[in-house]
């Protein structure tokens, strides 16, 4: 994973990760580069002046798609010659463009040799953290008088990087150079254009004519301004809330991703830099978090996922009829079917969550047309739950991978190998069923029933779904309740034995509504209790469990997205104060990251570390972390569509002061919400 001092700019799935000088010198531990369609098109991009590397005085990420570097010759340990300065400005948007400006501050004229070393390894995104030794195809280089072509060919698979310059340069196989003469106070300027090409037969880019994306720079600026103008406004006594909100909106804009073949519609990609692609789960959960703010994302996400819904059995891709995809990729390993992401379907939560999002979207937007448009896809998703996911035949959603080489072991959001365990720390056999997915399935049936009754004119199907939901709830509360702990088991093994650890997943159960009323209080107390609540957020696994580790990826860290759904769940069952406590924790943590919450941070107690410790390899910005503050705002303000209007029932901590949320879009047009912090959280926590 890239170190935190790398600079990243992006547009869709084209992005540049570089050092703070703007240089790219990729290694497995520092996988920098220019990437597009999951392929690295530049693995080396080093600027030198008279053979010397440059030192960064400063850099700015001006916007998510552009950055500027101020450089001087010499590395940090040397004397810095301030008589020359170099400004490097770059942007992505269709292609990668870099302009270099050199200023001579000396009283004397200078002769300079400016050189950029350029190279491309055409690594698949899945390979960048390994030594790339045995590419199966051939790398080639062609230096022409006006450009440098770097290429890779394997059969008909052909990718090229084309480098050209506005000022005549001398191109050679390893880069290009300029010899310049600068009088005192004179400056010199060149613009370099780097095109990425994914060539099909006949030399045509396979993205051509398919992609509406790839906008020009001006369009990107305009687009961002419109995106912000269309979203609700936040005013608060505390600037930090406004800053966090604005950061989230901009990051959401940056994370919009347009799939190759679906005509420019965008959905939220999962995260920068390594997850700039669509993930069913991440995209849906992000849409659920951001519905009150950017509802259009939900509409396009639902349409895209519906278009790619599974229609047959494919064991390599783990596709079933009705299943919603897990992940899509466009790199070489996918092209040659060494990896299954074309797309890969190995997740069991995306399918029920698809139904949940469609219903929630209608409740906010009143977009009945979309509910009718997606009726068949929605029915197929509901059918998948019963027909293909109940591998054990006990009425639950189970998973066991069919692709035993490259498929995922754990097909729930906690997808690392050791995330699901018994209380003694051992791992259960497969198939496994995790609790939150049963909650999602329950919610999908309940919401599907509403859609069937109100919009599909099928009351019989609605009744059937309601009966099934009620039976599932009853069964679940019998089989999963850990009586001596007062919570629900994380998972069941195929013999029905409980993985009886205390985990954050119980918060998702509250959100889904599957929790029996008389048990909700106990679940709520666990979520704000010391074992789960760190002071910043809810730990993925409770302190005291055998596998608990404050920096265990899914075994003790705090995931802001996870906590935001716990807060929503608490609020759903009427625990508004408890929801405010954990919302306050996450929003407090956001301050330490300039409003940009990482994927996860350490589960250390707040009193111990005083600040949230970022998880070492966390991806940032990450879509569902970006969505977390938005969902927490919704939760604290108590925003809920109710019989065609927007109900507002704020419960804010006293320290949060006054918050206004203006122009909330929905079936009501635009509405405002006002709130004042009145809750004394300290008293409550005692």
């Amino acid at each position, binding site marked *: 994973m890239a170190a935190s001092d790398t600079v990243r700019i992006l547009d869709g799935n084209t992005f540049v990760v570089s050092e703070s000088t703007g240089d790219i010198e990729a290694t497995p531990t520092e996988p920098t580069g220019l990437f597009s369609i999951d392929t690295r098109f530049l693995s080396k991009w080093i600027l030198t002046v008279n053979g010397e590397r440059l030192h960064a005085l400063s850099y700015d990420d001006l916007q998510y798609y552009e950055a500027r570097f101020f450089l001087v010759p010499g590395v940090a340990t040397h004397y810095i010659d301030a008589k020359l300065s170099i400004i490097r400005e770059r942007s992505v948007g269709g292609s990668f463009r870099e302009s270099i400006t050199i200023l001579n501050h000396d009283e004397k004229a200078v002769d300079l040799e400016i050189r950029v070393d350029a190279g491309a390894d055409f690594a698949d995104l899945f390979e960048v953290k390994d030594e790339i030794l045995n590419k199966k195809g051939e790398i080639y280089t062609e230096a022409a008088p006006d450009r440098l072509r770097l290429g890779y060919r394997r059969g008909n698979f052909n990718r090229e990087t084309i480098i050209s310059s506005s000022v005549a340069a001398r191109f050679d196989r390893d880069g290009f150079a300029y010899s310049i003469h600068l009088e005192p106070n004179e400056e010199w300027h060149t613009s370099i254009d780097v095109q990425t090409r994914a060539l099909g*037969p006949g030399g045509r880019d396979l993205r051509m004519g398919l992609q509406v994306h790839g906008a020009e720079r001006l369009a990107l600026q305009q687009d961002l301004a419109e995106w912000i103008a269309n979203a609700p406004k936040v005013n608060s006594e505390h600037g930090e809330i406004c800053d966090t909100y604005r950061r989230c909106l901009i990051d959401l804009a940056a994370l919009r991703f347009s799939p190759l073949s679906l005509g420019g519609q965008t959905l939220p990609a999962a995260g920068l830099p390594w997850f700039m692609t669509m993930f069913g789960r991440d995209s849906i959960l992000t849409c659920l978090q951001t519905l009150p703010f950017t509802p259009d994302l939900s509409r396009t996400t639902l349409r895209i996922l519906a278009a790619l819904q599974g229609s047959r*059995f494919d064991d390599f891709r783990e596709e079933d009829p009705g299943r919603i995809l897990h992940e899509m990729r466009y790199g070489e390993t996918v092209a040659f079917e060494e990896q299954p992401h*074309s797309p890969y379907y190995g997740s069991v939560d995306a399918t029920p969550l698809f139904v949940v999002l469609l219903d929630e979207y209608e409740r906010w937007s009143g977009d009945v047309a979309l509910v009718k448009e997606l009726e068949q896809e929605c029915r197929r998703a509901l059918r998948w739950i019963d027909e293909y996911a109940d*591998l*054990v035949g006990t009425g639950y959603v189970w998973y066991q991978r069919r692709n035993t080489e490259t498929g995922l072991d754990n097909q729930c959001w906690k997808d690392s190998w050791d995330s699901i365990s018994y209380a003694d720390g051992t791992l259960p056999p497969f198939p496994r069923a995790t609790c939150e997915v049963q909650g999602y399935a329950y919610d999908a049936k309940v919401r599907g029933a509403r859609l069937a009754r109100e919009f599909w004119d099928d009351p019989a199907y609605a009744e059937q779904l309601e009966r099934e939901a009620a039976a599932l709830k009853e069964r679940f509360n019998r089989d999963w309740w850990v009586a001596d702990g007062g919570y629900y088991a994380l998972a069941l093994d195929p013999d029905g034995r409980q993985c009886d650890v205390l985990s954050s997943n119980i918060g998702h159960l509250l959100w889904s509504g599957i929790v029996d009323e008389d048990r909700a209080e106990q679940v709520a107390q666990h979520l704000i209790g010391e074992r789960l609540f760190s002071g910043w957020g809810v730990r993925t696994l409770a302190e005291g469990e055998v596998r608990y580790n404050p920096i265990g990826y899914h075994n003790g860290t705090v995931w802001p997205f996870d906590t935001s759904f716990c807060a929503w769940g608490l609020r759903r069952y009427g625990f508004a104060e408890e929801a405010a406590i954990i919302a306050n924790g996450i929003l407090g943590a956001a301050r330490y990251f300039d409003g940009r919450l990482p994927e996860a941070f350490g589960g250390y107690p707040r009193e111990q570390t005083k600040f949230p410790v970022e998880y070492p390899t966390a991806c940032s910005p990450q879509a569902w972390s970006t969505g977390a503050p938005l969902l927490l705002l919704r939760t604290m303000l108590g925003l809920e569509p109710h019989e065609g209007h927007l109900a507002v029932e704020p419960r804010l901590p006293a320290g949060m002061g006054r918050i206004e949320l203006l122009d909330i879009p929905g079936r009501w047009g635009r509405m405002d919400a006002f709130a004042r912090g009145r809750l004394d959280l300290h008293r409550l926590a005692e």
Partner: protein
Amino acid sequence: MADATMRFFEDLDQRGYDPLLAKISGTLRFDLHEGPQTTHWLVRIDRGRIQVSRQDMEADTVIGASPAMMEGMVTGRENGLAALLRGDMTVSGDARLMVELERIFPGPPHAQGPRWYGKGVR
């Protein structure tokens, strides 16, 4: 050319309707190149109603592939997106139609689907 491709398209034409395509309208033309020879299949979809012919006419989506690749697609041995990325197939025009049409292509011939666990009692 009494092959799987022909059977696929003829079967499609005879079926005349597929609910998986109920929301789709448009035309797709498959250009199957082999040496100097190109065979065409034109698929017209009108909200799920399907007509197939051998006409070489303008279409919303044009797919180019070898006959062998097409045979792989209609028998479930080849995946459309992987073939596109690999350069073994071209798609121009409205790619969404191709994505939607792929729904009715069969899965791999030996796919088993979900593995049921033995001991369950409901």
